[in-house]
Every structure is written in structure tokens, then in C-alpha cells.
């Protein structure tokens, strides 16, 4: 069973801090997000996509749009439930191997890595026991 439940004892989400972090890299990340043509040509470059029977959830663009893209769209006003959902996208569905290829030249790993940093700032990251549980692999 995947542990996607928010921790009841966790501190409240610091949306101000998220917004500050988003603003710091806004110039680069918002351009990357807005120039993505949603062509899905990055799909086959991801070994996880290929290994998961071409499940669209593992497409590099899908992962970037539904993590960092969502954070920008909501201007950082997110709750812990959403951050916990993103945790699966940026840690379980991506290993940051850096092999994803975008024909336009968008650097997708830097977007996922940035999403991870934001999540980590809110104490959302995989726990050791999760990492080694079967559901995580």
C-alpha cells in the first residue's frame, strides 16, 4: 500500500516559502513550461515509461507539467495532499537519470529536480521505509 496519506503531525505548508522559491527560478522554469509543445516526443527517451508499458504517467513532460507546472499554475498555493501526490511523480516515477530528450531543448531534469527541492522544503520526501517498500519500486 502506497503511503500517500499526509502526515497529520506535519507542519502546515509554507506557501510563502514555496512562492519565493518559485519566483527565484521563474525566468527559466516558466519559459521551459510555456515552450513545451506537449508533443510527447520525450516519452520514449524515459526508460521508466518504456518499462511501465508506455503508461503516459511516466512521460517526462507529464511529470514536469504535473509537478512543477502545477506549482506555478497554483502560484504556490498548494496543500499537503497535493504535495504528497507530487511526491510520487517526482521521486517514484522519475529517478533523475537525465536521459530524457526534448526536441525543443527543454531541460526536463532540472524541472523535476527543482520540484523535488520545493517539496523537500515542505518536508515532503520519501521516507527510508517507503523507499524500500515494494510499492515504491
Amino acid at each position, binding site marked *: 500500500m502506497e503511503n500517500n496519506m499526509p502526515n497529520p503531525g506535519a507542519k502546515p505548508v509554507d506557501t510563502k516559502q514555496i512562492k519565493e522559491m518559485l519566483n527565484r527560478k521563474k525566468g*527559466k522554469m516558466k519559459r521551459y513550461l510555456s515552450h513545451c*509543445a506537449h*508533443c510527447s516526443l520525450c516519452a520514449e527517451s524515459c526508460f521508466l515509461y518504456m518499462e511501465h508499458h508506455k503508461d503516459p504517467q511516466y512521460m517526462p513532460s507529464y511529470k514536469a507539467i504535473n509537478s512543477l507546472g502545477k506549482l506555478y499554475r497554483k502560484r504556490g498555493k498548494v496543500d499537503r495532499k497535493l504535495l504528497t501526490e507530487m511526491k510520487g511523480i517526482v521521486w517514484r516515477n522519475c529517478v533523475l537519470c537525465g536521459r530524457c530528450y526534448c*526536441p525543443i*531543448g527543454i531541460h526536463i531534469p532540472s524541472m523535476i529536480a527543482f520540484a523535488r527541492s520545493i517539496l523537500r522544503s515542505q518536508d515532503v520526501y520519501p521516507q527510508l521505509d517507503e523507499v524500500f517498500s515494494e510499492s515504491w519500486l
Partner: protein
Amino acid sequence: MVDFIRGQLISIALIIFILGLIFQLIQFFRLTKKKEWVYPPLEIKSENKSAGQWVAFCFGSLKGTLWKTDPLVTIVTSVFHVFLIGVPIFLLGHNILLDHSWGLSLWSLPESMTDIFTLVVLICLAFFLARRLFLARVRAITTLYDYVILLIVGAPFLTGYFAYHQWFHYDTVMTIHILAGEVMLITIPFTKLGHMLFFFLYRFLVGNEYSFAKGARAW
């Protein structure tokens, strides 16, 4: 209103298009800086290969590229982008208008040829639309905005095709054609169509593994 669309708005759209691209270019150079050092370019060792070995080497290098993983999309998108830029620039009607207003024009392709090329652009757009509608992986990341962008790109070509063949009411179709072209020019610098400029900046100037050139700038 029609006079505005056929007159002043053309200049306004052109100015917004050019200034918008310049603004994006300046922003890009402000946001990126020159790297302290860059990786030396990869060098292919000169080996004594026969012509056949070279051909095999070149085709072997395509393995793992988009030519190998998605050849149909690669061909369609390449053809589409060449004609998307080329057809409006080398269209006889556009060049005659340019000559009338500015006294300068570019070479023009024969009308029968640009007519076919316009149709090719429309077929490519229909292919992209079909991918968005029927392919699960494209649908997963498609929003209403993507359809609007397809419409913005397709409208000038569709109305241009109608106008050339004088289908429907010519004047109305022509006005819509001009308006569609203006909307496209205005939206290029500020929407995902901006990849027209940023493709070159990302692939040639920003240094990463997939850069076509040395890529001496970093964010």
C-alpha cells in the same frame, strides 16, 4: 473595423511580433550568463572508413534518436515547420503586397506549388490534431490551450487556402485570413509558439548534453 484589420492592425501586429521577440531575446541573455568553461566539443576520430561503412555509421548513429523512435512524427513535423515558415514568406500574393507597400519583395514560388504546400501544412495540422485526440500519451498532457494554439496556427492557412480558391465570400474570408495572420504574429513571442525563437536559443546557446553547438551559456 474591417479597415482597421486590413490596415493599422497589420503594422501593430508586426511591431508587437518584432518587439516581443527582441524582448524575449534580451530577457534570455539577462537570465543566462557565459559559463566559466565549457566542455570541449566531441570529436569523431577520423578513421579510414569506406563509403559503405560511413553510411552504416551514419544510420547507426540515428539509433535512439527520434528518427528511429518516431519516424512518422519526425518527418511530418520537419515538413510542417519548413512549409509553415516558407509558404507565407515566398507566397506570390504576399510578395506583391509587400512590393506595393514597401517597394521590396522576396522571390516567389509558383502559385500552384504554394497551393500544394498550403494543403500539406493543413494535412500536417490535421495529423497533429488526430494525435491530440486519439493518442493516449498526447491526450494525457493536452489542454484546451493546445487546441487553441492549433487553431491559431491553422486559421491563416485554412483561410488562405479558401481565399486562393475563392471559396465562400471572398472579402470576408480575406479579412478573416488577415486577422488570423495578425493574431498568430502577436501570439508568437508570448505563447508556446515562442519555441520558434527559443528552439535555437535552447539547442545552440544553452550548454547541455543535447546541444547542437558548444552551448556556452548557462541559466
